[in-house]
């Protein structure tokens, strides 16, 4: 009875708080709105710039609304075969990476989630060491060289598809969300471990599969360091690395694959073209982001539970 009263007090306190609006509430809201603006306006500005006319941009008249609306820059980006191909290539690499990553992650997490597994401690140790200690860039580079993986697509995939962190998240999920009794009864009915995995565990693990697939996909999509030092071939460059080169090149002079396109017909300034390239790379992620964001939050929380 006393408890119930307490709860009522909380509720009434909550509703009272809404009706009373302090100056501090305003301050907090202003503070947060400003921070949100810093997350949105820069991208909005680049977007606006990318669809503005060249003259207006040169005259520094473009702020947060397009002037002399023109999609010429995008026409050029899409006409540039190397940009479009690189985008397609990045999508393919990300897809293969994500699928293989999930397979490997399950192969590691499912056996290790079983308390009864003999040698579990040993296998866990073997699979966790790489999280805390890596050999570093140069030994890895020489290893990739020895494995004949340099300058191939696979160097962007194979070394990273096993992720100790993702494995921990999945293992934690299996242990905490799938009732042991369910598996035990299937076991007694004569199901094999693999049958239990495919028929019981995986169908019950859809949320974590979604989350981890996204971890894998976004991680691969955004990374370009390995692309930078493992791959010299132009045709194997990920879109992120192309963007990096484009903007870095532009700091000195516009000298990229798109440079001659922009330079030949002096109608689009490199700046507008650059903005279009930035958007070309940014828009895909911004479009899917609102839909997948909640899975990330969930994953981050599961990952925080100590393994």
């Amino acid at each position, binding site marked *: 009875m006393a408890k119930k009263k307490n709860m009522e007090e909380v509720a009434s306190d909550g509703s009272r708080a809404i009706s009373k609006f302090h100056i501090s509430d305003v301050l907090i809201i202003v503070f*947060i709105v400003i921070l949100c603006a810093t997350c949105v306006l820069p991208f909005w500005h680049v977007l606006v710039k990318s669809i503005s006319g060249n003259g207006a941009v040169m005259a520094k008249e473009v702020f947060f609304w397009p002037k002399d609306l023109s999609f010429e820059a995008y026409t050029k980006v899409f006409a540039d075969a190397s940009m479009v191909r690189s985008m397609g290539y990045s999508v393919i690499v990300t897809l293969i990476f994500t699928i293989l990553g999930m397979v490997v992650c399950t192969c590691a997490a499912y056996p290790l989630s079983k308390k009864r597994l*003999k040698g579990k401690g040993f296998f866990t140790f073997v699979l966790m060491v790489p999280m805390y200690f890596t050999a570093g860039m*140069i030994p890895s580079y020489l290893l990739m060289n020895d*494995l004949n993986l340099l300058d191939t697509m696979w160097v962007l995939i194979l070394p990273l598809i096993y992720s100790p962190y993702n494995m921990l998240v999945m293992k934690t999920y299996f242990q905490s969300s799938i009732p042991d009794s369910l598996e035990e009864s299937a076991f007694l009915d004569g199901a094999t471990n693999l049958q239990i995995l495919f028929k019981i565990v995986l169908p019950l693990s859809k949320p974590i599969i979604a989350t981890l697939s996204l971890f894998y996909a976004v991680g691969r999509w955004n990374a370009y360091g390995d692309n930078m030092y493992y791959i010299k071939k132009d045709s194997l460059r990920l879109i992120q690395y192309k963007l*990096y080169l484009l903007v870095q090149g532009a700091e000195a002079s516009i000298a990229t694959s798109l440079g001659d396109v922009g330079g030949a017909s002096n109608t689009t300034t490199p700046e507008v073209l650059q903005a279009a390239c930035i958007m070309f790379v940014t828009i895909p992620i911004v479009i899917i982001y609102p839909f997948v964001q909640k899975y990330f939050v969930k994953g981050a929380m599961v990952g925080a539970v100590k393994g």
Partner: protein
Amino acid sequence: MANEKSAATVKVRTKTTWKNALKRDWQLYLLLLVPVALVVIFSYAAYPGLRMAFMNYKPAKGYAGSEWVGFDIFVKIFKDADFVRALKNSIVFNLLDLLVGFPMPIILALMLNELKFLKFKKVTQTILYLPHFLSWAIIGSVAYTMFRPSSGLVNIIMMDMGWITEGIPFLTEKYHWAITYLLIGVWQNMGWGTILYLAAITSINGELYEAAIIDGANRWQKMWHVTLPGIRGTIVTLLIMNLGRVMGSNLERLMAFDNTQVRDFQYQLAIYIYQKGLGNGKFSQGTAVGLFQSLVGVVLVLLSDKIAKALGEEGLL
């Protein structure tokens, strides 16, 4: 049936021999082979390469033909002005990152927690998490669009307002660069960093707040005396994890903000390893620096964990 079940449970719980374990769980071991093979091929196989740090490694001669030099390489790198500069920059920038970057998510989480309109809270959170999902290539290129001295948006606006007559070299003069680089780092992580704190805040016992209200605490006092102590464990854990990174450096982030005017500060350990070690073929030196970096990282984590435990916190390990 009931008997069978209990018998099976007992069998599972008693110590099984390898023969029985393999018979029962061979499929599980088969699955494990895949990740184990991958870590052996791609992680463990790289560890022997670490001996380069104790050799005068010449790629043409290979490991067998190169001579062992003990700790000479380490002596050499500590005499190398480039390394000392990279080390100094790494430590200074990482400490500054920690100093300005670590409190921000805590402050932001406390503020978000005070928001009363749930819809508004949800939308702002979604927006604030966004920078975490963009690559450093995107962030770097947007930053240049915003901060170029003559054509960057921020400078154009400030000039139009008459606040400045000449563009501020936010990213092209080293001290300005340092501040911009650090603030962008804070900005990138501030929203995402709140997640664990917000989760910790929701698990604080509501009765504590009620007691505080009865005692006449105002909003800020509640924050200071109830919320902050309530998330202290999370703060300590994350602090330990971050301390381990004081020696690390993010190559992609540094490269995204690279330009010739700021190399004095931008030259950090990851850049040293990439450019001098890999680019100039100084494999032994690059390996030694990498080894130094990861060992210091491991030691720092262990040390801060010890300290946290000595202070009565839960620690990480």
